[in-house]
């Protein structure tokens, strides 16, 4: 079963959020999901400490020397491995990319995110060349506006498409519920059904966005 790697040498672009949303939604579909938290900030470990959804197993503190064997051991029939990487340019990142069936590069629609995120895209292409096999990769724009598509976002999408880079649709909209997942743990469905959880946002819209995003990722893994 596939290995999905979240990669960007820039921090704060939404790697952990993407990982949590995909892990929750694939687990809801019945997959046995293993999430590898390779980020020293331990965002996913914090999320899981509040209660990970059924079907999600978390492994923390996976370093450079352990990443390849850990991915190999977690992989298996009916299993999906999701790797959340640190937001730096490290060998841990390059090794994880080499084991991926899909590399997702989250990017906020800003020039800085695009510039730094493009380093990850370039690395994937160079690894493809060095290894003599393709590594599927795609960009997802994150923290986008629910109301309007900014000029910068439109330009960035056009540039990425023009460069032949796969851009996942839909983008992940800036939703309070996505951030609150790290405070409450669990998944968006549980959040929607629990009136005591205060998100200050529209959980149903967030869930629809997460499901559409997961569907788009699923299509790339077939």
């Amino acid at each position: 079963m596939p290995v999905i790697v979240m990669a960007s040498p820039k921090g704060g672009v939404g790697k952990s959020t993407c990982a949590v949303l995909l892990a929750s939604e694939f687990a809801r579909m019945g997959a046995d999901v293993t999430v590898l938290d390779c980020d020293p900030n331990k965002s996913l470990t914090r999320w899981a400490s509040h209660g990970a959804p059924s079907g999600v197993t978390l492994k923390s503190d996976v370093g450079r020397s352990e990443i390849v064997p850990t991915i190999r051991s977690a992989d298996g029939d009916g299993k999906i491995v999701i790797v959340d990487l640190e937001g730096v340019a490290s060998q841990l990142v390059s090794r994880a990319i080499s084991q991926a069936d899909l590399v997702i590069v989250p990017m906020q629609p800003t020039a800085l995110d695009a510039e730094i995120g493009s380093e990850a895209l370039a690395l994937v292409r160079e690894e493809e060349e060095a290894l003599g096999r393709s590594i599927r990769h795609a960009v997802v724009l994150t923290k986008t506006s629910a109301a309007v598509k900014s000029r910068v976002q439109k330009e960035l999408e056009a540039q990425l498409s023009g460069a032949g880079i796969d851009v996942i649709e839909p983008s992940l909209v800036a939703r309070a519920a996505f951030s609150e997942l790290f405070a409450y743990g669990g998944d968006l469905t549980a959040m929607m059904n629990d009136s005591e959880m205060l998100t200050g946002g529209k959980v149903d819209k967030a869930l629809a966005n997460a499901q559409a995003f997961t569907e788009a990722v699923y299509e790339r893994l077939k």
Partner: protein
Amino acid sequence: MSGSNRLAGLKARPKDTTVEEVRRVDEVGEARGFLDRSPRKKPGRKPSPRTFQLHPKVFPKVGEAIAAEAERLGITQGQLIELMWEKYEAHQG
């Protein structure tokens, strides 16, 4: 989207994980600035749980004499200091 039967359609591509391939991946990464950033361990030898480390500073002549005497007796400088300490304690009564 629901139903585990859909997941059966998902496939993983075969990937080599040989030492040679990992080395190549490291090289490609390093060329682009993706370096080994694993936290470094504290340098130096770990303190022994059996012994205690002294850091005495003495005049060169005394130091040379202690080193020479330890060598003549075929013991370590630490063992010589232990002998000296025994004598000192015996002298103190």
